[in-house]
């Protein structure tokens, strides 16, 4: 049976949290302004009202403290879901995340589990002030012990968050904030795919575009535009950055022979570098062009009046497609 509803991305996340709170009394939410206010993006709207102050906690303004106390909750048998208010404010918690959260399962030889979700609204394109538009996912994907995912659609928002909460491992959950207001069908009865599977968002023949989170939509638009020029681009929504579903991606690249990876984060040592390196290694004789990358420049995220230039858009994606095809 399929029960689909039309939800915004934000509401899908809210529904996923609500359902998780309902299903498991050990699920607790922690973060700044997530209670009465419902979070600055309203992702936790009404949840404190309905589940109480002990399940949905307004934390003191200290990210390290939030993640660090969440570790304690996890050790006590809870499943904490932590909200970092904006991408640029995760760094004060960096030590707790990479040196504690990521390592506890390994260092305890598996006797300790940290089933924590760290939700991070990320990325630009909303005209925000400094520190509110960053894409630090590579830092976490490089860190063993963390799982890193980023949904691109309301349905994935709903299900991937549910699955992240259910995961026995810590999951850094990157929410593309510029997509919060996008609407889409959500089937709340059946997950579309496992948490770490990539998804062919649009099949195609001539070249593979790989993206995740906010850039999937841009790639789909690029593919639609290219179609008008007679080009058939395949779009792979990676969904997960640790692990990355390489089999799905490689299968696509073997078919198309060309790959362009797109993300907002700076290209230099961004997730695209790993994808390019690994896909090249595995598909060396299938590649007709080098893997090209479209992403942010090597600079601090710029003031918002320059972000249009900074952010990959349809034209920059198509420019890379042209260059790849020119090989």
């Amino acid at each position: 049976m399929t029960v689909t509803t039309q939800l915004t991305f934000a509401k899908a996340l809210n529904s996923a949290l609500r359902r998780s709170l309902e299903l498991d009394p050990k699920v607790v939410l922690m973060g700044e302004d997530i209670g009465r206010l419902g979070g600055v993006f309203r992702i936790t709207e009404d949840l404190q009202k309905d589940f109480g102050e002990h399940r949905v906690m307004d934390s003191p303004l200290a990210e390290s403290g939030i993640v660090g106390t969440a570790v304690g909750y996890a050790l006590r048998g809870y499943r904490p879901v932590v909200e970092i208010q904006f991408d640029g404010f995760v760094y004060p918690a960096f030590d707790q995340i990479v040196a504690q959260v990521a390592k506890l399962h390994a260092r305890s030889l598996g006797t300790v589990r940290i089933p924590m979700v760290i939700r991070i609204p990320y990325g630009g394109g909303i005209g925000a002030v400094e520190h509110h538009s960053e894409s630090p996912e590579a830092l976490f994907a490089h860190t063993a012990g963390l799982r890193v995912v980023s949904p691109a659609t309301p349905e994935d928002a709903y299900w991937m968050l549910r699955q992240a909460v259910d995961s026995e491992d810590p999951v850094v959950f990157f929410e593309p904030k510029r997509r919060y207001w996008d609407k889409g069908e959500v089937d709340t009865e059946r997950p579309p795919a496992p948490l770490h599977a990539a998804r062919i968002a649009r099949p195609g023949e001539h070249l593979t575009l790989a993206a995740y989170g906010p850039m999937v939509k841009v790639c789909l638009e690029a593919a639609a535009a290219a179609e008008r020029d007679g080009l058939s681009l395949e779009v792979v929504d990676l969904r997960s950055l640790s692990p990355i579903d390489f089999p799905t991606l490689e299968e696509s690249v073997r078919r198309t022979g060309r790959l362009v990876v797109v993300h907002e984060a700076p290209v230099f040592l961004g997730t695209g570098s790993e994808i390019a390196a690994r896909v090249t290694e595995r598909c060396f004789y299938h590649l007709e062009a080098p893997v090209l990358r479209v992403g942010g420049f090597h600079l601090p995220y710029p003031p918002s009046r320059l972000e249009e230039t900074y952010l990959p858009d349809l034209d920059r994606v198509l420019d890379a497609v042209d260059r790849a095809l020119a090989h």
Partner: protein
Amino acid sequence: MSATTTAAAAAGAATAFRLEAAPVDTGQVQLLTPDGERIHVPGLDLDCTPGELRAMYRDMVLVRRFDNEATALQRQGELGLWTPLLGQEAAQIGSARALRPDDFVFPSYREHGVAWVRGVDPLDLVRVFRGTTNGGWDPQAHNFHLYTLVVGAHPLHATGYAMGAAQDGADTAVITYFGDGSTSQGDVSEAFNFAAVHGAPVVFFCQNNQWAISEPTERQSRVPIHQRAQGFGFPGVRVDGNDVLACLAVTRAALEHARSGQGPVLIEAYTYRMGAHTTSDDPTRYRHEAEREQWTAKDPIARLRAHLTREGHADEAYFAEVDAEAERLALRVRAEVRSTPDPAPLTLFDHVYAERHPLVDQERDELARYLDSFADTDAEGR
């Protein structure tokens, strides 16, 4: 706590063991009642000439007007965001006027009043929130650092600067501004501790405006915030943050304390954020209108105006003149903001590094070529 010293215990004169927190101290320094009456507090002398009093009044009125204008400009889409200081004028103007020109300021993101006193053009502030720059002014030109948006990061910068100034042999003092919520950040505690251990000449000026976005101060601290200093071994004091004279006098005393080598001071200016956290915020979701109304009665500008009137230092004509000046300021800001151009795309790369960095050069060149290709195709009428 009440601990028994070895000696006392041995002598059998022990006080009883009890686990007790330090007593809560909600007292605050006030020099001006909400009605504008002057209070005299022994040990806290403050002689202001009528001219100085009027200057502070003018500062507050102009800054409030400018602040309102910026809020309006945001509503009109000219700014991406604004962080109103509404209600916190006295805390900012009073404390900033205690500074010497060679003192150095580390603000957070709401210190428009302090910026004003330091001579930063309001336009420079506004451009940051318009999104044309992340900086906006030369910190050295005003001894006023850039706004820091990462909550709690800059008190450490202030502390280091103060240590460096002391090391230079200068008698410069440093002041840093942050909010009640910010005190929860580990970095702020580290700043308190570094400053205490090194006896750094820094004044920590916390504007307790009762709210950190939607969280009231009780979510941030179990005790009044000025008491935090006790645990680090330096003085903390609460001042009526809507009383510009008290803010001036206490900050002056604290700066003197710091300057003279006695180490840091924490000032908690007890005030109220009359507006939203930012223009993106909707405070009706989390607080009651009644609270705001109570604070209206303690308005910092009305208070000083009452005092000026009561003492005969200013009359209606003066107040009208200041209001007119405020309107002119608002007009100028509005006009200039609207005509502020967006930066050219390639300026993106200008200041990532002070010295050359090939990757940045390469990306600049690639972007230039890419943008040029549009110029071509645009010309071709693509």
